[in-house]
């Protein structure tokens, strides 16, 4: 602190500059400040309000702030809530898995086998995502419907005598629609991580006598894992809580937790219960996410 007398004589601007140069973390926080403020207002505060509300009780059009865990006990004990929660997690997992498996070859092709006009290819592949989410879901209604493209095509070919009923209003329909509607979110991170792979690594592995299949499993796949993990999360997290798709293409057996949460805030008019369900959903997504990360970590260590 010998420098403090001279620092006091320095103009304020220079002193601030000095502080900024010396403390790197402060610089980081200042750069992050706008994002942190928005995050605080739009995520942290609502989350705290919702946590508080989930401990209340609805009475008519009012709430009693009696701070009880009643809503959470109901969620854990009543089969309706646990079933819908587990069903949502399973359906989102299946949809995510299907999507990642399907978009990986696309991303692979684009990263390694397309050499000119990549932008055009990217635009063509992501073209469906230039339309509204709702339109894409409705498009699937047209494709899967009773008089839809698939049914009328199969009828025309004489393969079926009567339209297939299970196509629309079923869990299959919800999974197909989710897999298509969110595909871009899985595709882009996988593509970016594949694109980043240094091509000389592939040459090196070929030079060392690795057959192409082993090269994929030992070089390309591990190097693209960050993209696969990012894509999985980007798709899994929002699809668990999706309620538009099950509303439009899911029948009575395909209702998801998002539908129930929406009903609690609407028709059923039990906001504390809706808040408790939303918090439970967030927590279970976090748990599944942590489990997935641990699994990936374990796999990586095992592979070494």
């Amino acid at each position, binding site marked *: 602190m010998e420098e403090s007398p001279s620092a006091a004589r320095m103009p304020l601007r220079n002193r601030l500059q000095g502080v900024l140069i010396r403390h790197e973390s402060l610089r980081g926080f200042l750069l992050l400040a706008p994002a942190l403020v928005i995050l605080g207002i739009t995520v942290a505060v609502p989350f705290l309000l919702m946590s508080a509300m989930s401990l209340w009780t609805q*009475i*008519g059009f009012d709430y009693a702030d009696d701070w009880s865990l009643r809503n959470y006990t109901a969620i854990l004990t009543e089969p309706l809530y646990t079933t*819908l929660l587990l069903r949502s997690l399973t359906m989102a997992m299946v949809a995510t898995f299907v999507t990642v498996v399907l978009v990986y070859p696309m991303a692979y092709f684009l990263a390694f086998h397309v050499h000119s006009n990549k932008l055009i290819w990217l635009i063509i592949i992501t073209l469906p995502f230039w339309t509204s989410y709702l339109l894409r879901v409705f498009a699937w209604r047209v494709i899967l419907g009773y008089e839809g493209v698939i049914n009328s095509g199969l009828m025309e070919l004489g393969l079926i005598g009567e339209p297939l009923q299970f196509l629309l209003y079923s869990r299959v329909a919800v999974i197909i629609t989710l897999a298509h509607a969110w595909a871009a979110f899985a595709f882009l991170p996988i593509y970016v991580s594949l694109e980043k792979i240094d091509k000389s690594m592939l040459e090196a592995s070929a030079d060392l006598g690795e057959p192409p299949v082993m090269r994929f499993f030992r070089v390309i796949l591990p190097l693209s894992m960050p993209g696969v993990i990012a894509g999985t999360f980007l798709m899994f997290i929002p699809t668990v809580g999706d309620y538009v798709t099950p509303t439009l293409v899911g029948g009575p*057996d395909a209702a998801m937790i998002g539908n129930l949460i929406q009903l609690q805030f*609407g*028709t059923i008019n039990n906001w504390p219960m809706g808040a408790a369900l939303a918090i439970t959903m967030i927590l279970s997504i976090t748990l599944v996410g942590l489990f997935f990360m641990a699994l990936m970590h374990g796999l990586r260590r095992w592979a070494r």
Partner: protein
Amino acid sequence: MKIPQMISAAKRGTLSRRAFTQSLLAVGIVPVISQVAPQRARASGTRHATVFTWGGFDVPELYQDYVEKHGDLPDFAIFGAPEDGLTRLRSGFAADLIHPCMGDIPRWRSTGLFQPIDTSRLSNWPDVIPTLYQAPHNLDDADGGVWQVPFDWGQTSITYRTDLYDLEGEESWDILWDERYAGRIGMLASGDDAWWCAAIKAGVSFDQIHTDEAFEAIAAVLRAQRPLVRTYTDDTSSLNQALAAGEMVAAMTWNSSAVELTFEEVPVRFAQPKEGALTWVCGFMMTQNAPSPDSAYDVLDALLSVSAGEFLTGDYGYGHSNARVLELFDDEELAALTLSRDPADILDAGHRSIPQPPEWSARMNTLYEQIKAGF
């Protein structure tokens, strides 16, 4: 040429070239006018009322008098079920008018979100059929106004395909519980209709509907029906399309589904079940903090006009609250629409829901959602 007629003419291939050109012209004019009209309305300084209503009630035909006065349609917001609308109002959404049904009034009033409507400001009020608004919970004791201006009335019943559904004996609610047609039955997702209809099917008297035994009996009936149901929805156009395609043979609907499908020449009938249908009267309530009450009164007056009523009854098949509308239709036409010259004939022949406290609504809706989800 009315739109449903035009569509059916196009389907038959009998749409003349002239009519087709006319419709093209109309389609072309609307976007051009719609660019100019709002500017004119803004110039005249009126602030449009916001009408929060069901899908299908946002059509210009119902607001002709308002458009003449203000140069443009009021603003609209659409809900799937009125209960959702109330939730949005409670969370701060600013609308002037909202469209619930008679049985909701006491419960909705208890939120303190609404104000009574001064009927002396409505030029069409003297023509409104008194039986539709003279319920004790609807009349405002203080200034003689009403809480809800009645607008539409009709029935919740069954629309079934006369060619696909093999009716045995009389029409009855059993149609929607017919195991021969498992997976081809459609149901309304809103408990405000489904629960009461199930009560009729279960033989529960409406004045007993609050009892635990009633809850059990109605839930049992709905649970038994669930495996037969293709889907639960409040979107009438989904139900109409499914009925037209033969995906469903019967569905719980309001009057309009049968009328619209008949326009499209789909062989359907709006059943008159022997146990009685569920009958209802719906109308508009004004919010306490209505942003533009003057425009809202003009909307109400336009809705009560004869021209609006002619469209509502002729094209949608709903009864209208203006007595002079009924004079435009002969007995045969009214019977075909399952309406009557005196609304009381239809309303009292069926069952009318009885206002219930919020706790009942919450319990009923929770239970109905559980049943729909399979529990």
